[in-house]
């Protein structure tokens, strides 16, 4: 890439909640220029961010060209592809092709999309390495909660032995409400759907699939496991009853959906009420066990448009630092 004084040019591929969050916060960052935004219908080239955001919110098309997302990735000259299309756990498309093409064309990739990393982690990291560009994915795990870069950079001096975490805000919200308000699972699920915390089809979250994807990414990134979805033993939260949560509570436990990275397992666990992983509401938390630094626990907002965009921006800014 060019010298540190020049602009960093980025494309935003995918313009849902996260893509719009990225467009919103990069407006205030000097030296970042968005050269293209792609949604499912078309591409806005050299977009005026305020205008494009307003059009999107108003349900109007944003496209001002005949290009496709892949055309942008292949032919529009820019530094970083921000891949924020929705996660597809069955093969990772269209994100996988976006990421692959970006790396082949020597563009750095910053993504919040778990699909490509779950489907082809080793291939993509190798491709990035071969082409001398970076692949950053802080936003795939824990939203705004720092974990990938925390381990890679800040904890570089320690060897990571295990990572365990409460990594899905939807599940955590449901379990917290059920326990605290003595409400049934179905009731809280409907409430979460109303609030936009759970999807209309909640399976991806409540069956533990989302947590499993995060476990795979961490296992591949830090333990070299080259794991895919079939390698993870997954139990969700959809069979948990309110009574069970009350019984656990009487003995001093909360129930949380925990992803265990070394074990490649996702399952509900009893956690002592005072334990640092016992975070409430939609919060995420992760506990990192290291050889020399002991156990370190982080907590933060695991989802949300601006929160996830903040993790993406931190990856973009670290790319800017790296080239200066």
């Amino acid at each position, binding site marked *: 890439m060019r010298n540190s004084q020049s602009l960093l040019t980025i494309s935003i591929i995918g313009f849902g909640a996260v893509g719009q969050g990225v467009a919103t916060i990069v407006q205030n960052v000097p030296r970042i220029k968005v050269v293209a935004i792609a949604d499912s219908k078309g591409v806005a080239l050299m977009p005026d961010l305020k205008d494009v955001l307003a059009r999107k919110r108003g349900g109007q098309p944003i496209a001002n060209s005949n290009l496709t997302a892949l055309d942008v990735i292949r032919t529009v000259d820019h530094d970083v592809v921000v891949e924020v299309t929705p996660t597809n756990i069955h093969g990772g498309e269209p994100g996988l092709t976006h990421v692959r093409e970006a790396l082949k064309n020597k563009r750095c990739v910053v993504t919040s999309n778990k699909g490509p990393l779950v489907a082809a982690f080793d291939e993509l990291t190798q491709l990035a390495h071969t082409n001398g560009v970076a692949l950053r994915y802080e936003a795939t795990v824990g939203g705004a909660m720092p974990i990938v870069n925390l381990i890679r950079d800040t904890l570089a001096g320690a060897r990571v032995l295990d990572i*365990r975490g409460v990594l899905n805000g939807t599940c955590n919200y449901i379990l917290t409400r059920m326990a605290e308000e003595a409400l049934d699972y179905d009731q809280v699920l409907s409430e979460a759907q109303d609030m936009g915390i759970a999807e209309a089809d909640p399976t991806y979250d409540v069956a533990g699939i989302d947590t499993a994807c995060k476990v795979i990414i961490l296992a591949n990134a830090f333990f070299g496991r080259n794991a895919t979805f079939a390698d993870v033993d997954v*139990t969700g939260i959809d*069979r*948990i*009853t309110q*009574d*069970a949560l*009350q*019984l*656990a509570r*009487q*003995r001093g*436990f909360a*129930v949380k959906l*925990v992803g265990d990275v070394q074990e490649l397992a996702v*399952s*509900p*666990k*009893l*956690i*002592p009420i005072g*334990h640092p*992983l016992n975070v409430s509401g939609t919060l995420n938390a992760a506990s990192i*066990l290291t050889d020399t630094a002991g*156990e370190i626990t982080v907590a933060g907002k695991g989802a949300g448009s601006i929160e996830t965009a903040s993790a993406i921006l931190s990856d973009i800014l670290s790319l800017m630092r790296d080239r200066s």
Partner: protein
Amino acid sequence: MRISMDLELQDTPGQLKHVLTPISDLGGNIASIVHHHDKKTFRNTVPVSVIFDIEEQTLEELQDGLEQNGVTVVRIGKMRLRARTHILLIGHIIHTDLRDTIDEIDGTGFAEVQDLSLSMPAIDGPSSAIITIMATGDEELKKSIGILRQIAERKDLLIIEPLDERGSPGGVSNEE
């Protein structure tokens, strides 16, 4: 097996080795020693309580060894069930015969279900239970959790185990 012993030692320097040497010679592993200097007896001896893990069949030999060293053994306590965990069960617990589930654990000889709270909201709905399992040691506790997992799979029950304590896998906590 974990043993707790109350002993009396002469109140002169160097007595403790008369306790520690026989225990370690027989392969014992000491967990705790408390010297009750403040509770000296009228015989001018000092009470000492020591807790250690040792093979049960060496106990008699140990007692002889201690007495030959001039140590008075006041009391020997065998702490049988010292590892404990809680497990949450969800599903058709009653319909699938709860008694049978408990009997399988109790039948091992090294673990037993010590406490159970049950909640049955509706006749056809799933019920929930939390049970406390005690076992003779950490390994035995892990084995009994393994048995419970098999039962749960057979009876289609969801079991929720405690998060492992770092350094003592199995959600095990030692209790006296």
